[in-house]
């Protein structure tokens, strides 16, 4: 059983991340990008017969998909939530493809939206974290990623300068993206390294900034894809893995389960990391990108630091990485954040990358990462020539 070329994305919707919610809600943002994605796909709302939602931090609730569908007036034949944090976007893509391949539906709307503050309803964290993590102040993911970075530096000699290079190159990409939240000026390695340390060894520019925002994409059957007005972007491979929830209990702090997820995705696709024209790895922190590139097989384990220094990660470089700016410069809209890597992969392969278009791009590696390297979902996307 394989999902290779069993479904394709044909439309996207996205808002530029912003700081102050004003009158927007997570639901209003999701409705907006859904309308945009369906129109972009050349479909009508009645054509949508599958819906996958991300439950927002800002409005956590059960029975989310039915409520969302009722609100926008869709009567799906498949509906569900995907609850794997930053891996939601990539996780939605293969689940949509699997449902289509199984004949359950033909056109799946994948949508997430979030605000950077609570609407009053506290997010329901599991009792395990409240009992064994919170009493010691381990409440924010920043502290977990800081412990990953610290250990990575200890084991492999990784430096703050190498991490800063990732933020700097991604900012260069963001400067060419009108939708990026931080696209007004370049960053320098010195500026990142001289910025405030929030949790050793992570500087403020190593860390995402919480924003409001939303992203959506539409995944359809091959039959619908072949009639698409945009070049269809096919799912070539997918792989998913989890080996812990809290980083303290992970088999390894520095080697993640990106490894099995990426291996499965590349195997299904029948391609290798060397074949990729671009990578869109989830980036809540610079260290996340570095560990992902290592574990997905773009360089040897432990060599991520030298690797990012030797390669140009900008859209014009030899390994275009997070061409939309990544969440570090695009902005992270809560649980919708990891969808932006998927929409950017689709956008680039459709040839709609504007000033940051990667030339002759036909293959993209996209990785979603949830929690603190806890859930990983890698996908390979393809534009057929």
């Amino acid at each position: 059983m394989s999902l290779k070329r069993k479904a394709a994305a044909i439309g996207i919707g996205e808002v530029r991340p912003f700081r102050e919610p004003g009158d927007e809600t997570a639901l209003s943002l999701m409705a907006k990008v859904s309308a945009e994605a369906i129109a972009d796909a050349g479909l009508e709302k009645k054509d949508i017969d599958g819906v996958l939602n991300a439950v927002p931090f800002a409005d956590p609730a059960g029975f989310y998909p039915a409520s969302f569908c009722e609100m926008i007036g869709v009567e799906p034949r498949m509906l569900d939530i995907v609850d794997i944090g930053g891996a939601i976007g990539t996780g939605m893509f293969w689940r949509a493809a699997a449902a289509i391949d199984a004949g359950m539906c033909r056109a799946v709307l994948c949508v997430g939206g979030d605000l950077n503050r609570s609407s009053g309803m506290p997010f329901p964290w599991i009792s395990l974290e409240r009992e064994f993590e919170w009493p010691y102040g381990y409440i924010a993911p920043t502290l977990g990623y800081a412990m990953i970075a610290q250990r990575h530096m200890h084991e492999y000699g990784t430096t703050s300068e190498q991490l800063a290079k990732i933020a700097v190159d991604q900012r260069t990409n963001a400067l060419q993206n009108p939708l990026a939240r931080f696209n007004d000026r370049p960053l320098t390695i010195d500026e990142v390294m001289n910025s405030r340390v929030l949790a050793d060894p992570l500087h403020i520019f190593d860390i995402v900034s919480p924003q409001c925002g939303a992203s959506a994409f539409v995944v359809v059957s091959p039959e619908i894809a072949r009639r698409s007005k945009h070049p269809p972007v096919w799912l070539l491979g997918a792989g998913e893995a989890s080996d812990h929830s809290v980083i303290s209990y992970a088999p390894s702090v520095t080697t993640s389960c990106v490894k099995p997820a990426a291996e499965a995705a590349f195997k299904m696709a029948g391609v290798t990391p060397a074949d990729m024209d671009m990578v869109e790895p989830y980036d809540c922190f610079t260290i996340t990108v570095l560990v992902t590139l290592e574990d997905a097989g773009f360089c040897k384990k432990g060599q991520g630091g030298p690797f990012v220094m030797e390669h140009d990660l900008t859209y014009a470089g030899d390994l275009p990485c997070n061409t939309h700016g990544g969440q570090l410069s695009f902005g992270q809209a809560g649980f919708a954040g990891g969808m932006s890597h998927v929409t950017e992969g689709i956008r680039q392969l459709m040839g709609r990358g504007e000033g940051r278009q990667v030339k002759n791009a036909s293959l993209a590696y996209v990785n979603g990462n949830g929690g603190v390297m806890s859930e990983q979902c890698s996908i390979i996307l393809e534009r057929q020539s």
Partner: protein
Amino acid sequence: MSESRRSDDRPAAFISEYGKPLPHPSPISRPFWEAARRHELTLQRCAACGKFIYYPRPRCPHCFSDRLEWKPVSGRGTVYSYTVARYSPTPAFKELPFVLAIVELEEGPRMTTNIVAPPEQVRIGMPVTVAFEDATPECTLVKFKPA
């Protein structure tokens, strides 16, 4: 970050006096926290596969046996990784900086904890020993200090 709904019968002052989040033991974890209150570190050990376990589980996560026994352990370990928090992750943690760490216990398991020491003294691989902190009369947290 205090909780509005509590599943036990302790007085409300239990949370408010201390000001930071405290564990609400479950039937599975209660022996761990009761031992901590006596300033003893105990872990579950699987009678089937012999492995020590942290945090307390309903079944062994290695071999899935339900034959778990509570055993006193040495309280010795090393710092596996750490960070110095220089900002408040929630308003409750306002005494900065503090050291959050993963300690690898001599018996094997790793624990999320704090190192009670000046941040500049903390290093990966540093030997540490348990340092119980009586947060309230009812609750003792399991922290570590340089050995």
